[in-house]
C-alpha cells in the first residue's frame, strides 16, 4: 500500500477518467483525493470512519489506472485498504444486514434463487426498508429463468482446437443461465471442447470487491481441484470474475495455498479474449444489418486491459455494424454490488451511459458482463425503451449458427 501511495504525485491526470469525480466534482471523490485520504488514515492523521464514505463511493472501476502516468496500482491499494478496514469496521445495523444479505446470497445461486423466487425478501420488506434494500430488489427480474445447465462436457464440433472449462459464476447462473450455455455452444462451434465442472462455483470476486476477505478466500478455495488439469484455459463470462481472480495474488498473500491460487489465476481468461486469440472459425453472420453498440465492462477494459478483443470478434461478423459511443470508458454504474450500495450514483451513471448509447441509434447492445447487462436493461426499462442488451457469447453463438 505504501508504494502505491508514494507513487501518487497528485498530478490530477486521473480526474477526467473518474466517474464519481465527473459526477460529484469534488476532490474527495477522485482517485488522487481518495489516495490522499487513505494515506492520512494509514498515517493516523484522519479517522477511518471520516474517510469511509468517500472510499465507499469508489466504484472500483479502475479507469484511473490506465490514466495514471506514474503507474500507481490503485486497484491493489483499494482492495488492500478495503480488506484492512473491513476487519475493524462498525456498520449501522441496517447497513450490516444489507451487506450480510449481499455476502450470504449473491455468491450462492441456490440461495439467491430461493431468496428471489419466494419473494421472501421482496414482499415482506419492500417499501419498509432503506434505499439499499429497494435497489437490491429492483435488480431482480419479475421471474427468474429456469436453470439451464450446460452438459458436463460439450464436445468440439469439427476439428478439436482447444479444451477449456467454464467458470459457472454465481449471480449470473441464477439471473441468466443462458449466457454460459451460449458461451459453451459458441466455443464448441469453433472447435473447442467445453467442460462445465458440476462442483465449481463462485470465485469469490464479488466478495473481494466489497472487502469481505475471509469469505472470498473460502469460496475461491472451493474451486481449486474442481477443474480438469489438461485444459488450456478456464473461461469466465463475467468481467468481474476475471479481474477478481487476477487479484488472487493479493487475496492469498501469506496464505499456505498461494501458489495454487496463482496457478489457478494464470489459467483464467475472459471468453472474448480467448476466442479472439484462438480465432473465430465460424462466422455466418446475420441476414440483415445489425447496428451494435459494444458496452465496455470496466473490469475488462480497465482492470484487464481488454479494449479490442471483443470488438475484433464483433467486427468479423458479416452484417454487424459496430457503432462508437461517447465516453465508452466511463462506468455504467453497475460495478459489482455498487448499484446495491450506492443506488443514486449508480442510477445517474446508468442514465448517462444509456443516453450515450442511444445517441448512436443501435438496435442491439452487446456486453461481456452480467452486471453491465442488468444495469443497462434496468435503465432502459425505466425509460420504456425496448432496446435489447445481450451478452457477447449469445450474439456470437447466434452469428456462428447463422440464425436471424
Amino acid at each position, binding site marked *: 500500500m505504501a508504494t502505491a501511495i508514494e*507513487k501518487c504525485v*497528485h498530478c490530477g*491526470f486521473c480526474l*477526467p477518467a473518474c466517474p464519481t469525480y465527473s459526477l460529484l466534482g469534488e476532490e474527495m471523490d477522485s482517485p488522487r483525493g481518495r489516495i490522499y485520504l487513505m494515506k*492520512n488514515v494509514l498515517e493516523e492523521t484522519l479517522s477511518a470512519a*471520516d474517510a469511509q464514505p468517500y472510499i465507499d463511493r469508489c466504484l472500483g472501476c479502475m479507469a484511473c489506472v490506465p490514466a495514471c502516468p*506514474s503507474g500507481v496500482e490503485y486497484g491493489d491499494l483499494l482492495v488492500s485498504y478495503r480488506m484492512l478496514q473491513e476487519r475493524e469496521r462498525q456498520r449501522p445495523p441496517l447497513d450490516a444486514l444489507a451487506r450480510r444479505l449481499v455476502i450470504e446470497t449473491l455468491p450462492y445461486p441456490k440461495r439467491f434463487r430461493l431468496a428471489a423466487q419466494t419473494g421472501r425478501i421482496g414482499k415482506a420488506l419492500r417499501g419498509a426498508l432503506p434505499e439499499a434494500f429497494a435497489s437490491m430488489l429492483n435488480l431482480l427480474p419479475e421471474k427468474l429463468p429456469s436453470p439451464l445447465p450446460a452438459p458436463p462436457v460439450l464436445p468440439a464440433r469439427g476439428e478439436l482446437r482447444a479444451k477449456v472449462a467454464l467458470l459457472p459464476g454465481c449471480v449470473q447462473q441464477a439471473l441468466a443461465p443462458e449466457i454460459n450455455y451460449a458461451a459453451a455452444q459458441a466455443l464448441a462451434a469453433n472447435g473447442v471442447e467445453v467442460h462445465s465442472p458440476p462442483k465449481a462455483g463462485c470465485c469469490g470476486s464479488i466478495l473481494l470487491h466489497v472487502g469481505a476477505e475471509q469469505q472470498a478466500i473460502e469460496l475461491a478455495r472451493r474451486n481449486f481441484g474442481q477443474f480438469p488439469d489438461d485444459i488450456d484455459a478456464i473461461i469466465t463470462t463475467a468481467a468481474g470474475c476475471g479481474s477478481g481472480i487476477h487479484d488472487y495474488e493479493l487475496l492469498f498473500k501469506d496464505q499456505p495455498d498461494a501458489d495454487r491460487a496463482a496457478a489457478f489465476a494464470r489459467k483464467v481468461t475472459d471468453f472474448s479474449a480467448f476466442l479472439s486469440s484462438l480465432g473465430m472459425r465460424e462466422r455466418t453472420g446475420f441476414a440483415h444489418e445489425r447496428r451494435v453498440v459494444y458496452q465496455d465492462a470496466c473490469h475488462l477494459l480497465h482492470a484487464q486491459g481488454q479494449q479490442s478483443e471483443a470488438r475484433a470478434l464483433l467486427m468479423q461478423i458479416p452484417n454487424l455494424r459496430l457503432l462508437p459511443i461517447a465516453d465508452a470508458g466511463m462506468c455504467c454504474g453497475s460495478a459489482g454490488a455498487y448499484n446495491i450500495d450506492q443506488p443514486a450514483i449508480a442510477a445517474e451513471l446508468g442514465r448517462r451511459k444509456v443516453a450515450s448509447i442511444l445517441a448512436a441509434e443501435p438496435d442491439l447492445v452487446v456486453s461481456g458482463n452480467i452486471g453491465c447487462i442488468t444495469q443497462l436493461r434496468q435503465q432502459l426499462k425505466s425509460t420504456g425503451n425496448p432496446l435489447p442488451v445481450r451478452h457477447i457469447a449469445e450474439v456470437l453463438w447466434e452469428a456462428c449458427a447463422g440464425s436471424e
Partner: protein
Amino acid sequence: MNRAFIAALESIYPPQRLLTRDVELLPYESDALTAFQTKPAAAVLPDSDDEIIATVRLCHEHAVPFVARGSGTSLSGGSLPIADGLIIGLNRLNRIKKLDPQQRIAVVEPGVINLSITEAAQPYGLYYAPDPSSQSICTIGGNIAFNSGGAHCLKYGMTSNHVLGMKVVLADGTVTQFGSESIEGVGIGPDLVGLFVGSEGLFGIALEITVRLMPQPELYRTVLAAYDDLGRAGDAVSMVVASGLLPGAMEIMDRLAIKAAEASVKAGYPDAEALLIVELEGETLQVNAEFEQLRGIIEASGAFEIRVANSEEERARIWKGRKGAFSAVGRLSPDYIVQDGVVPRSRLGEALVEIGALKEKYGLDVANVFHAGDGNLHPLILYDGRAAGALEKAEALAGEILALCVNLGGSITGEHGIGMEKRDYMPAMFSEEELDIMQALRRAIDPLEIANRGKMFPGGEAPALKQHGMHPLEKAGVISRE
C-alpha cells in the same frame, strides 16, 4: 475565518458544496506540487457565475483571502491554498456555452478542460491551439492565470494569443468585461485581457472566456538533422527562423540526451553531437512548398546526416526519441536538477556555449533537451547526491544558468510560472521599479490583497521550495518543461 463569514457562505451554498470538515479539505491541501501543503479553512464549489461573484464579494467584505482552483494541476504551487483562506473550486463550471464555427470562437466557463474545447471543435475541423502537456485535465481558468503555452507555442503563441475576451470578477467584487468576441475588439485602448492573462490569480476570477479556434493542420512534414557540433545545430535554428519559415516545432538534443534516449527507447538516432528536429504543419500545398525550402536550409547548415519522415510511422520514430529523452536522462545519473529558463532564440548558440563553460567550471555533466524554436532551455544538471557537497554544487550551477538566461534577455521560467516555486527569483528578472508597478497594479485592483495572496511576489511567510530532480511525471515522460 469568522463565524459570520461561514454563515454567509451557508446562505449561498448547500452543505454538499461548502466544505469545512478536515476530511473534505485534506484533498485540497496541495496542487500538483506536493512539496507545499496548506489546508484551507474552507472550500466552496460554485455552480454558477452568481455564486462566484457573491463569494468573492463576501471575501472582500470580510477580508478573507481566497484561491481560485480548477483541476489543481499547477507545478509551481499556483493554486496552493492559504491557511485561514477559502478555496473556490471552479471545476464544476465546465460548460462550453457557445461554439461558433463561422466566427471560430468558443465561449467557455473557467472550469472547462483545455482538451474539451478541441474535442468540441473537432467536428468543424477546428481546434484550440495552446497545448500544455496537462491539457487533458488542466482548465482554461488556470491556463489564463498562468498564460500556459505548450509544444506548439512557437508557432501559435501562448494562451494570451488565443483569448479574445472575458467576463471577470475582480478581487474587490467588481464584475466587468475585458475584450470582446471579435479579434478587432482587441487593440483598442489598453489591453486589459493581456493584463489579466498570466496574472497568476492575483486580480480575480475569469467567469466566462471567449477563445479563438484554429483550423486543424492538414499535413505535417518532419526532418531530423545530425550535427557534429552543438553550436551548429543552434545556428541552424537561427537560419530557419531568419528564412521566414515558422515551423510548428523545433527541438534540439545534445550528445548526452541522445545517449539517454537511445538507452531508453532505442530510437535509432545517428551518433552525433547534436540532433535537430524541425516539423512543419499546416495546409498541404504550403507545407509541401515550405518543406523544399526547409530542406535546402538544413542541407546548407552543415548537417552530416538528414532524415526525412515519409510516413506517419517515420514521423513517430523521429519523435519517439525526443519525447522519451527527458525521462531517459534519469538513466545516466542518480540525481539531477532540471532547470527551466528561456533565452532569446537568436542567442541560443551563445547560451549553449556559456552553459558548456559553466559545465567545465563546476565539473558536472549537463544534458540539454530543449524547445529550440522559442529558446526554452532545459538543462539537466547531473550529480550524485551521495557525494558530499555535490547537491550544493549542482544547485549553484542551476542558479548560474538561470542568471545567464536573465542576462541574455530571457526569462526565469518557460511554462510553469512563478507561483510558490520561483517567487524568490523574481528580483533577478525584474527591477525594483517593475516589481513596484506590479504591486501598485495589484493593489489598485485588490486593495486587501485577498486574491491568491502569497504567490508570485518574493517574500511572504511560506518556505522556499527545495525539490530536486525531475518531477515524477517528467520522469514518466508525461510532462516536460518545453
